[in-house]
């Protein structure tokens, strides 16, 4: 291989490694950071005891372990599943809202559980509450909706992942240099009354109220659409949808944790 080509390949490799590093888990970190800030002192102390870290440290733990025994079954819990009528399916054990409810109920008895089991369930909760609010983590029957695994394109005609776009790119539009701390400082400024309103209900109801935003993703980013040609207004709406869900997830995660550890 000639020398010029080797130099160019090294440059491309460096850029690609860098890019992969830069996009890891912004939304998950933001959700857990908002939650961490809204924990009661009592809940925070107990959570730090069980986790030996703050909540954001474990934001992507379920992703890191989804294909590893003995956690492999949890790999299917990351989305909300709809039944044939289009309703959130609380009879489906893979459904994120179902698992959130189950884990929450289990943790109500945390005092009788072994520390390692409390920790494992907290790790699940940290990720599940976040994922159930992700606009592209809702799966409807094929007959009624597009499947979220479809692809978008870019100016070069290459495939872009719909999932990755909504997981990362939609949130970070115009915010490439934002840290999670800056995001939480700027965005998580709701009043106590607003937070109370957001936290009212159950995981099932939370999942239901997020569905309109999820449905909107199919309209804003239809199959094969060019990610580099979306209008500014659409990009801002995509970002608003992501922000809305991140905030709801962050406050609700804190609420769930505070409820569990209030005694």
């Amino acid at each position, binding site marked *: 291989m000639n020398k*010029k080509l080797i*130099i*160019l390949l*090294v*440059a*491309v490799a*460096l*850029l690609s*490694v*860098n890019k*992969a*590093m*830069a*996009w*890891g*888990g*912004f939304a998950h*970190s*933001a959700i857990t*950071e908002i939650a961490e800030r809204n924990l009661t002192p009592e809940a925070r102390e107990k959570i*730090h005891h069980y986790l*030996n*870290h*703050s909540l*954001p*440290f474990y934001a*992507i*733990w379920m*992703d*890191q*372990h*989804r*294909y*590893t025994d003995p956690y492999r079954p949890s790999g299917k819990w990351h989305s909300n599943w709809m039944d044939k009528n289009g309703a959130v399916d609380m009879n489906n054990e893979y459904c994120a809202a179902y698992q959130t409810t189950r884990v929450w109920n289990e943790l109500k008895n945390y005092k009788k559980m072994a520390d390692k089991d409390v920790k494992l369930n907290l790790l699940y909760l940290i990720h599940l509450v976040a994922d159930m609010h992700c606009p592209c983590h809702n799966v409807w029957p094929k007959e009624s909706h597009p499947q979220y695994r479809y692809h978008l394109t870019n100016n070069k005609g290459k495939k872009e992942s719909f999932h990755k776009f909504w997981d990362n790119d939609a949130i970070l539009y115009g915010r490439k240099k*934002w*840290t*999670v*701390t*800056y995001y939480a400082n700027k965005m998580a400024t709701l009043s106590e009354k607003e937070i109370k309103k957001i936290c009212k209900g159950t995981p099932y109801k939370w999942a239901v109220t997020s569905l309109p935003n999820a449905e909107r993703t199919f309209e804003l980013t239809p199959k094969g659409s060019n990610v580099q040609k979306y209008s500014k207004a659409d990009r801002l709406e995509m970002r608003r949808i992501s922000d809305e869900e991140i905030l709801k997830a962050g406050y609700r995660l804190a609420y769930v944790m505070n409820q569990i550890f209030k005694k």
Partner: protein
Amino acid sequence: MKKLFITLALAMGVYTAQAWNWVYDQAALLLAFESMTPEAQSVMKQYLGENIRQQIQTFEQARKKGQLLDTADWRTVTLDMDLKAVVADDKNAIAQLENAVDVVKACASKSSEEVAFAIHKIIELTIEMHNVGNVYLEEFPYSKEDFEFQQSMGGYGAKEKFRPRKWKHFWSYGFSVFHSSWSAEMHVRDLKVCHGRYKEQYMAGTIRDWATDMGKLVKPLYAWADPTCRLSRQAHAEEEERFYAGVARAAYRIAALMNSATK
């Protein structure tokens, strides 16, 4: 050819500017400053600047210009078969740190530039000697050279893909991928949650004792010194605890050195 070099320079530039490992250095310095006596904080402010943020920036600029280290050897520590520090000359972190502490202790008879440089050395070399990749064990002669192992890379898909990874690069850059959007303050909070209770333990002893402590932390890792050794996604995530243990030790030990030098 000129264009190729420009491409390479740009690639390297972007890579350096977003070298996420810097955030860990920042976090170590912030936590160190918090842990210093008022006298030590005052001396740091006098020689490096009033504002700790400005100090970090000054430090970073000097580092980028190559003004801090004349030789790569200054960053390293070598340990014998009993994990005792080998200090045959001044080409190692231990001798350089001991010298820097002496300079700060005698600050009244030294020029401002000499004292500022000594404080910079205390910060940077304490951080460097707590980087796993800079701890050499005579028992494993190859530890001084870089070596390769296989690391799981390429996201969170069902099938792990293993690629060769350089040992030293891994310990400098291999963990920022998990928290790429965190601020230094988030790391400081987390370091305090998981290591704050060991603060006194980490700060006790001499620089040579600290080198031995790092040797114990690093020794089991040399089982990786095999091009066929595979580090799975899960093992990579678990190793972050060891990486964090190095960052926390560095932070508290910078404070210990500054405290003793300004007593």
